[in-house]
């Protein structure tokens, strides 16, 4: 079929467009703006029905609103169920591991994530929506985390960031195999922790001290954002956005921390200089991301950068005015700035509309 969607997300978007088109067509006919001949209508309905049937059979898409609502319910149930399942499996192991010899403990710990991977593959073969596959994939990831953590504990191995490299590779592999966004987020966070921890270790600092040197998190965020921009994704079209959003949240939080804690920087400059420098970077980065987001139509990027732009602004106002202004005046001024921001963002929205148009 020409223009056939490549994945389930694109197929769902197509099904949604068809539903909107039918609703709009009905409204236009009711208002006597457009009227199709019975033959045209029949041909159109036949074409759209066959398209929906094809999308449903190939990708198991939701063709109406109630199906879509059920799907959301299932997604929430899968996430909550996945978390509960992970907690249950971990607690089950700890409940009985004291009664097992070291060899049996290690064998079970290695076999468990491999078995969960096999279940994930079986589930993925049987269903197109991947609800059960994503549940099994989450369990597999949790079991692998338990595996390395428990093996480290059994042999009293000093902790290091290297386990996060293994968890990251595992989560990336499963995320790309089944196009699971949650696993991709886990993979990105794990690889960020590995990168930060490794940089700290190489500098002689204990590897868990990310908060003590937020620049390591900032670097990991920049790498993830660059990967989101440059790594081609022909199959998983929604993955670059996950890279960018995870990176933006991590990077802006690190910048925010540095604007108030210059003493935590690697830079041995006066604290105030470090804080002002990172504040300037925060402003520049949020404005750049908003601008780029509007130009490219990346709504999520614009929302995240706008939220942090507002936070940077309020932090700056607090530093300028809190000490010398009466409190009531400070809050009135902040309210006035908020109104100004709404006007500014409205203008930006209008600009983005014209770009989309």
């Amino acid at each position: 079929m020409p223009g056939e969607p490549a994945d389930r997300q694109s197929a769902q978007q197509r099904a949604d467009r068809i539903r909107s088109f039918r609703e709009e067509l009905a409204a236009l006919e009711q208002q006597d703006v457009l009227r199709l001949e019975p033959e045209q209508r029949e041909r159109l309905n036949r074409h759209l029905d066959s398209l929906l049937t094809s999308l449903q059979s190939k990708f198991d898409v939701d063709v109406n609103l109630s199906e879509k609502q059920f799907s959301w319910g299932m997604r929430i149930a899968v996430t909550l169920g996945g978390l509960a399942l992970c907690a249950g499996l971990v607690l089950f192991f700890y409940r009985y591991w004291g009664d097992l010899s070291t060899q049996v403990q290690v064998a079970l710990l290695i076999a468990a994530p491999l078995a969960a991977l096999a279940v994930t593959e079986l589930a993925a073969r049987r269903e197109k929506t991947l609800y059960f596959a994503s549940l099994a994939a989450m369990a597999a990831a949790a079991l692998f985390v338990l595996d390395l953590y428990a093996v480290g504990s059994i042999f009293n191995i000093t902790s290091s960031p290297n386990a996060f490299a293994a968890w990251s590779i595992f989560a990336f592999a499963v995320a790309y195999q089944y196009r699971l966004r949650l696993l991709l987020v886990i993979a990105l966070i794990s690889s960020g922790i590995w990168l930060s921890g490794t940089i700290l270790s190489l500098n002689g600092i204990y590897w868990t001290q990310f908060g003590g040197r937020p620049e390591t998190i900032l670097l990991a965020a920049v790498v993830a954002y660059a990967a989101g921009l440059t790594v081609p994704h022909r199959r998983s079209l929604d993955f670059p956005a996950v890279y960018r959003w995870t990176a933006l949240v991590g990077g802006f939080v690190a910048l925010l921390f540095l604007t108030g804690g210059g003493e935590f920087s690697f830079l041995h400059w006066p604290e105030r200089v470090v804080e002002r420098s990172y504040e300037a970077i925060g402003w520049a980065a949020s404005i750049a991301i908003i601008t780029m987001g509007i130009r490219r139509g990346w709504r999520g990027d614009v929302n995240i950068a706008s939220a942090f732009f507002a936070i940077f602004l309020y932090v700056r106002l607090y530093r300028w005015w809190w000490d010398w202004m009466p409190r009531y005046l400070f809050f009135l001024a902040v309210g006035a700035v908020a109104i100004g921001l709404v006007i500014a963002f409205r203008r930006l929205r209008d600009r983005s509309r014209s770009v989309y148009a």
Partner: protein
Amino acid sequence: MRTRTGILVAAAAVLVSNGLALWHAASNRAGTDAEVVLTERELPMSAQEKDDTGIWLRLNWTPPFAFNVNDWLDRAKLRELGFDVTADPLQEAASRRYFSEPPRAAFAALEYDGPAWQKYLSSYEASLKNTNSPQSADQLARVRDRGSRLVPIDVATDPAALRAHHPNTSRVLIVPATVRVTYAGSGTGQRLTGYLQPALTDIHVPLPLSRQLNGMTPLSIYSPEFRSRYEVRLRFGTHHEPWVAGITPLH
């Protein structure tokens, strides 16, 4: 047909990482850096979670910087560990910087029941005499008869150099630790020192050794009934990671 590269990579990640962890554990146990027999005073049982059947012993050492025991952990030693200690510690900006300095990875030398322990006891006794507290005798008895006799005596980033300085492998343990900059003294007499913490606190007791501890529950040294109930033969390997080699009940 759908490729299964992802699933194969994920399975390989499980197998390779476990293989590396097991190889690391085996290479640690291929040699012995230290072997020491400790009691429940130094290795009390860790508090168990309700749903956790594993048994753990906690490596317990004396308070790291109490009573000037760690007077060897001075500014020069901190510099050796990689801290930038050029700023005058009495300046406010410098103290903010020192307090925000993240802990560095290091190795600590812990001496068991040796001169450092005797020095610690003497310092403690002297400090209690100054307070004239009616509970002094009980406090001294608690530390002297029930407290851990493992005392930090040195710290370095290179464990081999540390072992070369302290070659007694049946009395001095080299353990992974972290060091944070802190202050000792008060007023204008304040000076820089280090706060030592173990990087590995809980030591797993595997079967069948854990059977020796069956039926025991963790006991606090603050309890007047506390008496060491077991001795543990603890070995440290080439990576300075410990394992329990034997447990002997004492009563």
